[in-house]
């Protein structure tokens, strides 16, 4: 007897994966856009170089979401015009909204550096995107798909290292942003 691995059950589970993959792409794309915007704003040369370095990886991770669809045996609907398609609009809107919220919260907190305020939102955005891949990994484990783990495991590890870097830069510049009212 087959327990939960008959074709209709497996198909239904895989169908439930697709919306999460769309979410993962949206989160990663929004993070990547915010990272590129912030990296260009940074004046401090070391931090600017670090952010540009991890932006390369962020673009690679965003492209890997396409591979995740294949690893789950699902068709990506990235192409505009197809039903339920992902478009660049959603992550752009999400990134812009988060930047705006960060602006408001940062100003309210007395921080005068626009770039530093964006670093704060970048920290939260990457955390969100890490969870996107990490949750996809749990779904891959549940549905016995090693190809998923081959994709997600190194990405989650690399993005976690990036999270440490972003946090460190953000904290290093906090006193200047709040007490000295100067930007990064």
């Amino acid at each position, binding site marked *: 007897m087959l327990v939960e691995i*008959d074709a209709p059950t497996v198909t239904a589970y895989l169908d439930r994966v697709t919306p999460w993959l769309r979410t993962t792409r949206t989160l990663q794309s929004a993070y990547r856009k915010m990272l590129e915007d912030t990296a260009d704003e940074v004046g401090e040369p070391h931090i600017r170089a670090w952010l540009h370095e991890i932006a390369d990886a962020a673009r690679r991770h965003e492209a890997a979401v396409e591979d995740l669809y294949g690893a789950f045996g699902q068709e990506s609907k990235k192409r505009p015009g197809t039903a339920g398609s992902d478009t660049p609009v959603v992550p752009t809107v999400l990134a812009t909204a988060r930047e705006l919220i960060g602006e408001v919260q940062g100003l309210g907190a007395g921080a005068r550096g626009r770039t530093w305020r964006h670093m704060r939102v970048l920290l939260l955005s990457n955390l969100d995107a890490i969870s996107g891949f990490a949750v996809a990994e749990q779904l891959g*484990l*549940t549905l016995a798909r090693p190809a998923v783990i081959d994709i997600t495991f190194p990405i989650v590890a690399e993005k976690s290292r990036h999270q440490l870097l972003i946090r460190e830069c953000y904290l290093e510049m906090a006193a200047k942003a709040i007490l000295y009212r100067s930007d990064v």
Partner: protein
Amino acid sequence: MTTAMPLSVTVAEPERLRELPTPARPRVDPADVVVPDGYHVEVVLAGLSMPCGMGFADDGTLFVLEGGSTWPTRPYLPARILRLEPDGRLDVVAEESLGGPRHVLVYGDTLLVSCKGGRHARIDRVSLKSGKRDVLIDGLPNGGWHEPGGPVLGPDGLIYFAQGSVSQQGVVLPQGFQVDLAKHMGVHDVPGEDVVLTGNNVQTYDPTAPYPYLVETGPFKPFGKPARRGEVVKGQLKCSSGLWRAQPDGTDMELVAWGLRNPYGMVFGEDGELYVSDNDFEETGDRAVQADPDRVWRIDAARTPPGSIDRPAWYGFPDICGDGLPVWHESHRPRRGTPAEPLLQDPPPWAGPAVFLEKPHSALTGLDVSRSDAFGYRGRLFLCEWGTLAPLNSPDSRDLENGFRVVAVDPSDGTAEAFMRNPRPGPASALGTGGLERPVDAKFAPDGSLYVLDFGVSRVMESTHVSYGHTGVLWRVVRDGSRP
């Protein structure tokens, strides 16, 4: 206990087992499993998620436990108690919470189920009539790593059960960060009798600190708390690494033994003796031990009258290996990691030797005894070897293929033979076959056939360990011509 979800079950032709929709285990094929001449293998269930244990009722109904959160703890899948009727119907009896069911004893019209739980393991009683659950015994120190054993029914009418150590190596260390320190801050081992500490502590980095500074941790202490020389730690009835007996309603609980590191499998043999499987120390980290053999203990104290134990038997944890040598002995000095030092001053008398020693990291799990001339091997222990976690816990390349089989152990002389295995060492997924992955429990059915529960695909690499849902299998081994 949560409300059970409906279960999707399909009766499949054998050829569908060769094209399963689970890429981690794309096929299951009894022809790829080797058993002695005169026996053959069948597949009963495929697609189980993290199965951990099972038990038969007298009428042949089989209860199979899907463990929920297991090894590693993610993904957490439904921790279900499944019921397989003799006519082939399969349904869900109950669903447990996080850290789910590990072993089951069918007792009248109830199930006595050990659950790993979170900080504490417990034994639940589930009514087969109403599905209602009550907790018989709770508060057995756990904290993430090692497992409950039993309950099993003794010849004296009492239930016997166990719980492994909280720490892996005698001291809570950051190797267990994900499941120990992160989820269970403050957990620690508890001795089964008063012990005096040597004051030896283990130095290690604190991964929870913003800077990786060194901390000292002592035995029977939470992470980061050192022990003092001559310090006395009081023993408790509900210790870690303990083995108890009690009335089937949970009353009159008595500590029979302690010092059992990971006593996953328990069975009373035809000789009336209690046999317990146990797993070795790991050769990694800050209190590393090389080549500690896996073992099966005979618990002599289980023969004593109930209520008569003044001092529980001690089987060695945290200072003695399965071979009776101390963890700091030359033969156990690690090739990787920091050597171990004595933790107990004037330790209790050792209750060994073991009746059977196995290669390190074979990961001994569930076992049963053959009680049938029709099946053969009468009196032998059929012992599952879940299989190694090397290279995660051993640098020795010889440990990479240990386990992944069922052995038949003669407890009278400690000899064993491989009874059920793949043609070559290792799990089927590594061999590219449809054979055994990780046998986790063995039980003889009332008709004399042997059921072997296979946990499924659990892959280990140097920096990670992942397990896949829906890859568990229930196998049956039948002696030719013996089927009623």
